[in-house]
């Protein structure tokens, strides 16, 4: 099926799920989600791929599901990356304007951004994003676009996000084997923020915390630009693991406990949760209070780590819009109250606000990274969209067939 409209696909290879979101735009500005495909992830731990084959199969299945639901073929995607190795910092670059008329042009802007990006990062690291924050012309602060201004010295602040090259390449390679083209990658927190925050909220200042299955990614907007970001490799998996260890349950039981009975409010009166086991084994009882205590401690700790980071960066006074929590863990009961107590800021459980589509997709916090990727893709694509080549198409159709056969078998 040849598409006239522009299709943008976001693919998140996450710890708990692999999720593809298909977005469609008519005018290049407004986006509509037209399809979602999701499968449980089996090859990822703490946001990074640990089993290439499993991850590849998951991706294939998720993309196939997305194709079915959207009724389009998917050839290329925007992928998210995460993991504890991702680091960030802010840097300032500067150039001297050498034109005779001292007018700042696109060249100067490009050069100053390059200069700001040219920083010492570890040998094995690669820059994923260098996001411009603000410009200075001859020291004058707060300039958003210096093009056609006059000045002798142009400076720019950028937020640089970098991480270990090979680990990003693993994700890309895995997707390419499917085979799909990776148009670009974005860190999860950035993608989530694009889905969750409106421009106004970005301007007022906000922190987006994406608590996913394996990692907690956060990003801070101040005065409309990204000021800080980070990844803590702790997520919903850790909650399950804590429960499994604390209550001595197998992982799948612990996961079920978390989803069905878990809450961050520790009940004052204890009650027993009884569940049946296989025939022949006696029923098992679990204390709800302890379940909740284990969860409460873990989530409170993780949020506190984020808070500490914000304090270290002295960003607390710039977050007028408050805290937006998204990702699968945002569904935890009692999270809003707990986060409110920890951050002492308004807390929103993040829904995707910047995109249209079926409510089931938009209102699910766990889709915000993939939805944000669509948004990101739209921004970074800007008329780069090319129809897929014949080989790609062939490969894809073939792969699709294989997949179908597999599911049939």
């Amino acid at each position, binding site marked *: 099926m040849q598409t006239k409209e522009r299709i943008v696909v976001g693919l998140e290879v996450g710890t708990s799920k692999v999720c593809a979101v298909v977005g469609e735009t008519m005018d290049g500005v407004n986006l509509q989600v037209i399809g979602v495909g999701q499968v449980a992830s089996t090859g990822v731990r703490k946001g990074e791929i640990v089993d290439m084959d499993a991850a590849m199969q998951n991706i294939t299945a998720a993309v196939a599901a997305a194709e079915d639901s959207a009724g389009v073929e998917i050839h290329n995607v925007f992928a998210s990356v995460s993991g504890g190795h991702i680091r960030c910092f802010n840097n300032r670059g500067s150039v001297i304007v050498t034109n005779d008329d001292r007018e700042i042009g696109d060249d100067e802007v490009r050069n100053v951004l390059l200069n700001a990006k040219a920083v010492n990062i570890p040998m094995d690291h690669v820059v994923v994003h260098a996001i411009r924050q603000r410009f200075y012309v001859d020291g004058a602060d707060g300039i958003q676009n210096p093009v056609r201004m006059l000045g002798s010295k142009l400076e720019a602040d950028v937020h640089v996000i970098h991480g270990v090259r090979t680990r990003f390449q693993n994700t890309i390679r895995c997707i390419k084997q499917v085979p799909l083209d990776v148009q670009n990658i974005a860190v999860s927190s950035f993608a989530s923020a694009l889905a969750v925050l409106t421009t106004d909220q970005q301007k007022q200042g906000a922190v987006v915390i994406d608590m996913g299955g394996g990692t907690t990614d956060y990003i801070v907007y101040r005065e409309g630009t990204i000021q800080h970001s980070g990844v803590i490799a702790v997520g919903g998996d850790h909650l399950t*693991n804590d429960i499994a260890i604390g209550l001595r349950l197998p992982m799948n039981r612990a996961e079920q406990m978390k989803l069905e009975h878990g809450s961050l409010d520790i009940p004052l009166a204890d009650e027993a949760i009884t569940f049946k086991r296989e025939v022949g084994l006696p029923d098992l009882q679990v204390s709800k209070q302890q379940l909740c205590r284990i969860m409460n401690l873990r989530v409170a700790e993780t949020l506190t780590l984020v808070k500490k980071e914000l304090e270290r960066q002295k960003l607390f006074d710039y977050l007028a819009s408050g805290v937006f929590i998204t990702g699968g863990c945002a569904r935890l009961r009692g999270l809003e109250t707990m986060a409110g107590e920890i951050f002492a800021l308004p807390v929103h459980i993040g829904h995707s606000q910047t995109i249209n589509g079926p409510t089931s997709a938009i209102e699910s916090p766990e889709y915000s990274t993939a939805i944000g990727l669509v948004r990101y893709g739209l921004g970074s694509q800007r008329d780069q969209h090319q129809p897929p080549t014949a080989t790609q198409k062939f490969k894809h159709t073939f792969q699709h067939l294989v997949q179908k056969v597999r599911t049939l078998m």
Partner: protein
Amino acid sequence: MATRKSTTENSDTPHRIRLKLFGVGGAGGNAVSQIAGALTGIDVVAVNTDLQALNGMADVEKMQIGSAVTHGLGAGGDVELGLRAAQQDTERLEAAAQNTDLIFIVAGLGGGTGTGAAPVVARVAKEQGALVLAFAFLPFNFEGDRRRQQAQAGLELLKAQADAVICIANDKLFKVAGENATASDAFQRGNELVGTGVQAFWQLLSRKGLINVDFADLRNALGSKHSDGIFSFGTATGPDKSRAAVKAVMDNPLLDSGEILGKAETVLVSVLGGPDMTLADVQRAVEPISRATPRGHVIMGAAIDEAHGDRLTITVVATAHLVARRAAVPVAPRQPVGRRLPEPTSPQRAGNPAPVEEKLNGKKDALPKQEHLPLEGVSRGRFDKSEPTLYDGEDLDVPTFIRRGVSLKR
């Protein structure tokens, strides 16, 4: 909101809180005699084996202990001697501790009397029904290993007895006083620090505040929890005094630049200002501290002292409960794995039929120990084979409840 006038009225009511300050040993005695003058309304008792040291003191009630053991001399750095001396005079200590709600004990650890006798005084005071808060000076590093170990052993015992122990490391005093301070200056600063600490509690409780703290609150927060504490204060003047005072509190070397507040479970914030102190001042002073204490229960009080003028003083006492930390043991092997310190049992063997901690807590097990988690024994579950997620030296893959030492009843 109580005014000064009501203070005088209140002072005769039966609910008035009765405080007593015990200085145990040489350093403790010196400290209390120095600060006694500033603390009106508190009975101050100096307890020592050394008659000569006691004689040199003014303004305090003096109690010589263990005259039969030491013959009026000091304990000479012998902890057992200090312990025996106190045990010999338990009855007199009991009498002194009777009818008191809150007892402060000030002792310098590392020597004989302070280290040996302070836990006994704490036990006795506790048995008389008082809430016991101890201020312990820890010896300088340069005083050597033996003294340090002795101090640590004493501290363990003291922590087992007192409701809260606030440690003041002499090494940190140097930082407070500055490199060039004379020795006597530094010690004086230390003593003042204790004075300020006692005063902070005193102000909180003595019903002349803008915002009062109940004794019951304090008891709830500290009572029988064997807390471990740290303490800091700051004073500032001028238009932005609240913020400056908070900064001074946080910058105080005693507080390890505020980091410790994050770990605290109970934080006592006392704000003392002149008559022109506004509620906004109090709020500005307390808020950053509460913010720095995510897990903690913040007890705040604000008092007005006319003599204080334009100044604003913030005193912060942060405590973490030992019981909570101790509970980490159930997941670890029961043996005292990795305990670095010598067993603090030697002082008790000296003819004490019932070791102090057994008497109080019912079981020997309840003695707090210096411990660290045996890392290889801790389960990481499904993350066993993955790269550890380290953050500030903690492996976040290990369940939080294990690292926090929260015990789960089964």
